């Protein structure tokens, strides 16, 4: 099943994007056209569709939350 993940848009082309997620993974071909996200934006993604653009403050909060979860789970975080 899909989980909601937040990350940064690092490349866009024709409404599709490469998103680097805070959990250290990255996916190409994320559809960012519905939220019109540009390179450098922080987005919330479910499946392969960006559902929202996050403010810098919210993105920072999400990233910190992920780091804490990863620490608790004993997962290394870059």
């Amino acid at each position, binding site marked *: *099943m*899909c*989980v*909601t*993940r*937040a990350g940064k848009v690092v490349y866009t082309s024709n409404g599709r994007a490469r998103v680097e997620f805070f959990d250290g*993974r990255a*996916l190409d071909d994320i*559809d960012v*056209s*519905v*939220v019109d996200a540009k390179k450098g934006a922080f987005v*919330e993604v*479910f*499946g*392969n*569709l960006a*559902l*929202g*653009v996050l403010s810098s403050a919210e993105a920072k909060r*999400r990233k910190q939350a*992920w780091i804490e*979860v990863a620490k608790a789970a004993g997962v290394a975080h870059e």
Partner: protein
Amino acid sequence: MKADGVLFHAKHAFMPNSLGYCGPDEKGQIQRDLEGDRSNEELVQTLKKFEAAYPFLRLIAKSAGRQVFDYTVPEAYWIGNRLLDLVPVSDFYSFSHHEIKGRDPEKVREVFRRLDGVAPPHHTFYVMSTYATSAVPDGPNITNQARLKIAEAVDNCRISWGTVRRVGKEELQVEVRRVNVDERGLSLARPAVKRVRYNPEVRPFAKVRAGDVVSIHWNYACDVLTPRQARNLARYTDADIRLVNRLMESEESRK
């Protein structure tokens, strides 16, 4: 032969994992084990690494007093059965706050408040409520094209079902009812035929035939459903849609 809950769960978790949307990078292990019809400890350990699916199974299993991979537990989660009714809403609320990564706590609170505490731990409800509480579907200027994309995404993410009309080598033509999204909310469209992939190496797909009803996740046929399962999936999906439309209606009335 006793139905295997590990394999049933793996069949439904496989495609979003292979697309990179959830779970660990397991380098083809799930597919190999499905093709070999092997339920084993290594597969169990892999399935426990799914960030959302496994916690949901634990929640349902605990409420029902069953083992996590008892067949009825993943069946409840993906398809729907009476085990969902045994999960106290207070437990589901607490679980949604503490065990599911990535969801905004405020949105979780809103879902439970606006539905008066009626919310099932069913995969389809999770998917649909995630979209319903996102910033996208209630935007004032949402275009028809955006609606189509959201409908397609919901349809891919949920477990849908289809009646097999034609069997190809690695592709089935199935009659399905897609999710429709419009200003009134979600609904199921009239039946239409679409193509989905399947793996003939995964049991029981070597014997799949026209008339069978299959479960579908991300355009991949996961399993052949029994008539009871097909009825349950339709019934629970219908209930999920009604709940999510209530959620969206109450969002509209707040504006």
